[in-house]
């Protein structure tokens, strides 16, 4: 496991342009020793799932601040499954109320980070919870 660097896709779905968080996370993960692919803004769930498969990533981090998290997270998970990539860990962050975070975890989102989470927490979580895909 140590010989393969984990590859993480940082993705920004939805129509909003709030990419401050996504960029900071992408940079922190890269500084934390992971290979990071950043999609840029305005991605559809299809574009994200497709990029995850093509780039052969081990995890997808979604940054959502538009309020559309209950639509977008499940959609990405469903599309990954359809592409035979159900084992890609999906995590995310943004303005996500606690009760929604609980529901999202039931739907298969591995972790939700809300405002105030430090980049260190996120890097640590990825290190401890994401495994390289076989």
């Amino acid at each position, binding site marked *: 496991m140590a010989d393969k660097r984990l590859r993480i896709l940082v993705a920004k779905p939805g129509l909003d342009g709030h990419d*401050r968080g996504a960029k900071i996370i992408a940079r922190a993960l890269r500084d934390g020793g992971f290979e990071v692919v950043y999609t*840029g803004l305005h991605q559809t769930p299809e574009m994200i799932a497709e990029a995850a498969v093509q780039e052969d990533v081990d995890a997808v981090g979604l940054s959502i601040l538009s*309020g559309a998290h209950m639509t977008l997270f499940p959609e990405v998970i469903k599309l990954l499954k359809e592409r035979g990539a159900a084992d890609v860990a999906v995590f995310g962050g943004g303005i996500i109320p606690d009760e929604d975070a609980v529901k999202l975890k039931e739907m298969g989102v591995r972790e939700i980070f*809300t405002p105030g989470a430090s980049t260190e927490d996120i890097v640590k979580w990825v290190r401890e919870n994401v495994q390289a895909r076989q």
Partner: protein
Amino acid sequence: MSSKREWLETTYKQASERPVRFSTISDMELEPLYTPDDVGGSYDDALANPGEYPYTRGVYGSMYRGRLWTMRQFAGFGLAEDTNARFHYLLSQGQDGLSTAFDMPTLMGYDADHERAKGEVGREGVSVTSIHDMVRLFDRIPLDRVTTSMTVNCSASVLLAMYLVVAERNGVPWDRVGGTIQNDMLKEFIAQKEWICPPQPSLRVVTDMIEFCARKVPRWHAVSISGYHIREAGSTAVQELAFTIADGICYVEDAVKRGIPVDDFAPRLSFFWNIHNDFLEEVAKLRAARRMWARIMKERFGARNPRSMMLRTHAQTAGASLTAQQPVNNVVRVALQALAGVFGGVQSLHTNSMDETLALPTEQAVTVALRTQQIIAEETGVTNTIDPFGGSYAIEALTDRIEREATEYIRRIDEMGGMIKAIETGYPQREIAEAAFHYQRQLEQGIKTIVGVNKYSTPEELPIDTLKIDPAIEERQVQRVRKIKRERNSVAVREALARVSEACRSGENLMEPILEAVRREATVGEISDVFRAEFGVYRDPGWI
């Protein structure tokens, strides 16, 4: 008495100093003390009295003694009738002007029934797809008496056309319609990231609107040159100031190049700043902004009308400064930020609601935010005298320094060939991302503090009520849009859209053809599709 240097080396050195970094939130280090030695320039040149060039102390002769700032709370959610009800509530509570928040599909030029609108209809603002939504949104609002601000950029031409058609239908002549449309596309590429087409054609549409409004809607501000989003994206105060002024320079250059005399449109250019936590830095930034703009308009563009040189501005407290943790603390942050805005001499102000980091504001939260402004205006006494910080050694020294550093940025952008070129190479985008990352690291290292987040945090928190948007709203709006598309005269719509296409190609001003398309019930998405086809689609380069 000792000189400043002697004082620093003796009295100050012998006194104790806390082991912290004495720097602004933008990480500008401050000296322990400012004295008359730190302040340059003569009173007449650098400051002058309010209402006099270079307007450092205020654009109007009597400032808040003549008229208080406009209290203008940004509002929009759900269907047009939901937002209309909030508008009427805000006006009944003493608010002076309206400010409209649109949802993401509207802001990005998609109809509510578009695939990409799924899950986003009415969520971050009000959904407006056709003229019918706009009619409902401004139902029973007297457009000749209430001024309206609309925060929309890449689809701004369509929304302005809709507003003017509502006025037309209500019998209000366009020359009596007043308000502002944000329409600042350059800062979209730099910071807010709502776009349809690449920078160059986007600029052309903005200039079309500046030209159209100068001729037909003289009380309208066709562009609000905005630093707000640049700051929210993580810039420093100096970057916010510099990039915004550089954007302004680009708009003025483009309009002048088209042959519009500068004094014909410049008096209607307005600005929009962010008011962040660092009190002294913000007051100084606003004062520096006025002086810079006045000098640039006079010296660089040869403006003669004093109104062309006056930087009149709206401001909003910093959304990014609000915390999800201990949200009631946000009331205090907002009050202090708003106070800085008032000391900075703004013309219009939005105070954020304490719950805005969690959701769109509840009526109760927005009322507290409005009351905050009313308390500042009518209880604190700060409006009794103009620019009370003027002459403060620290504020004047900071004002000079911020102006100097922002001017240096503008010089670099000029060297690159102007703001469009700078954007194409990603220069301002990278500078901002760098500053955002630097601040995040300072937070995590404890060099900077956010109360309740990285210091004084509490494990258990009382949740506050937040506004929930009913998911059924989306389905209702989608059905409405489909019904309109079924029932309207589709031949008339196609003809009108073809006229918009032609104008895109010929270079003719786009506003008249867009107005006609809107009258014929063409939608935001359909007109935006014309832009996509004619001008191309811009994609995020995804720079980290």
